[in-house]
């Protein structure tokens, strides 16, 4: 598209493709290497590993502190998913369908948590929640994450609602369906894939995020990311490679499922 067909491949072009290929490799290699190292049988992080084993995964599952952290993370992410999806769906419906003044400003307002640096949101919520409930509350962390996930949910759902043919709803109305029936029978099935995938992204946002729990977790409700953080402040522990691979798997699952949902959708 860019190059002209008649042009011969010069040295410059080769160099360009070389740089691009190298950058692509740099983007993916660290994640792949950590995944490989996580199956190493060695005591330290050598690459390539001398042999393969599941020792780091076994160690991870054997330590109660880490198991508890995983459970906390799953709880926080699940509550975040439910809250952010519900609230994001409401906001998307209002923003795409509604006709009221100042919609652009409301849109910017809903997306603003994405713009404000997370460290600021985290510190502000810390000052706020410490006065209200203290630290260590799973619900407080989930509510904080809901704020961060809301813009993502709205972006995913709103873009689908945008492409939605509202004449389908008109048709249902004119055939005598009530507002609720129309929503249930027409709107929901059409936007369901987008809503589900928005929910998955909300889950991922929470599961991955460190700063809100770093300030709000206290000692009693550490999430997995906080535990990784505390561990990395001390040393580069090989076991973290196994935990990291778990994060990568969760990411791939979310991306994979939402790609399937998009294909199944309109």
């Amino acid at each position, binding site marked *: *598209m*860019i*190059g*002209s067909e008649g042009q011969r491949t*010069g040295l*410059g072009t080769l160099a*360009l493709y070389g*740089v*691009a290929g190298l*950058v*692509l490799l*740099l983007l*993916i290699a*660290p*994640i792949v*290497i*950590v995944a490989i*190292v996580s199956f190493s049988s060695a005591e330290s*992080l050598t690459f390539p590993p001398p042999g393969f084993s599941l020792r780091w995964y076994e160690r991870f599952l054997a330590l109660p502190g880490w198991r508890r952290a995983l459970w906390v993370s799953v709880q926080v992410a699940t509550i975040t998913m439910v809250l952010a999806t519900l*609230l994001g769906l*409401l906001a998307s*419906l*209002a*923003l*795409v369908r*509604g*006709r*009221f*003044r100042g919609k*652009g400003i409301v849109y910017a*307002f809903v997306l*603003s948590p994405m713009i*404000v*640096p997370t*460290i*600021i*949101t985290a*510190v*502000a919520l810390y*000052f*706020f929640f410490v006065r209200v409930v203290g630290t260590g509350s799973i619900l407080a962390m989930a*509510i904080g994450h809901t*704020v961060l996930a*809301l813009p993502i949910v709205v972006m995913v759902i709103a*873009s689908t609602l*945008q492409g939605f043919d509202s004449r389908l709803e008109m048709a249902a109305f004119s055939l005598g369906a009530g507002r609720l029936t129309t929503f249930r029978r027409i709107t929901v099935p059409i936007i369901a894939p987008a809503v589900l995938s928005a929910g998955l992204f909300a889950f991922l946002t929470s*599961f*991955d995020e*460190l700063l809100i729990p770093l300030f709000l977790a206290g000692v009693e409700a550490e999430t997995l*990311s906080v535990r990784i*953080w505390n561990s*990395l402040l001390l040393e*580069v522990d090989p076991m973290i*490679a196994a935990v*990291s691979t778990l*994060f*990568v798997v969760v*990411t*791939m699952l979310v*991306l994979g499922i939402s790609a399937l949902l998009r294909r199944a959708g309109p």
Partner: protein
Amino acid sequence: MAADGAGAAAPIVGTTPDQIAEARDRRRHLLLLAPPAILLVFIFVYPVLGLLGQSVYKDGITLRFYQRLFAEPVYLDVLWLTFRTAATVTLLCLVLGYPLAYVLVGLPARLQRLLLIVVVLPFFVSLIVRTYAWMVLLGRLGLVNELLRKLSLIAEPLPLLYSTTGALIGMTYALLPFMVLTAFSVMKGIDGGLVRAAHSLGAGRWQAFRKIFLPLSMPGIAGGMILVFIMSLGFFITPRLMGGPSDLMIAMLIEHEVELTLNWPFASALAAVLLLVTLVGFFAYSRLVRLERMFEGTR
């Protein structure tokens, strides 16, 4: 617009059935908006405003926390280092990201989609995991040092981790996808016919690029650079874990003041400065790259 404005004024509602329906519709949508708006107001706006208020109020209105920030050399050093790090990361991202975006945009659709996944995947992997990955690679006995040693390029391992170099590598890696995706989205909108026309008029590949493609891709370059720059300014996780003891950036100072010295007003003043710079930068970004186009909703 004018008709819409008249309808929004409550008292004259009810003149025609159409207007009644429209007003009811508007109320319904505002009602839908209420729960998310309440969440954002109470759990986001109010705490952030509280933080800003705390930076100027202690036993009466005061600017002393800001004065301290701009008067003491230690803190000026932090601001300068933050700025310098962000600028370096931005340049690195440009140098690495622009060629990749350029190549991607010229590829056949199928391959392009596949390679875009490679760009996007790291973007969705937890930042702390990506930081860990580079800590593994850059350690004294890590893959990079081992490789360089085997190639006899170095005798002693380089101090790649726990140094400024480490922080720069980690941050560049984390922010590169933003540069590539921003540049790509602008390049994708460039009419390939213009470049072909330049060729047919006798321009060489380089000349056509420099005279036609490069200027047209400028909003992508500028947008990507602004985005990477403002995001670098607030970075915490990567420089804290990979940087050296002297690589103190503003976000790390904020955390330090909150958790250790417990000087909350000063931490708030730092946060306010960071927030202001970020918002100004983001405004510039939104002028250059039409963000709304990605999730069009303001009609």
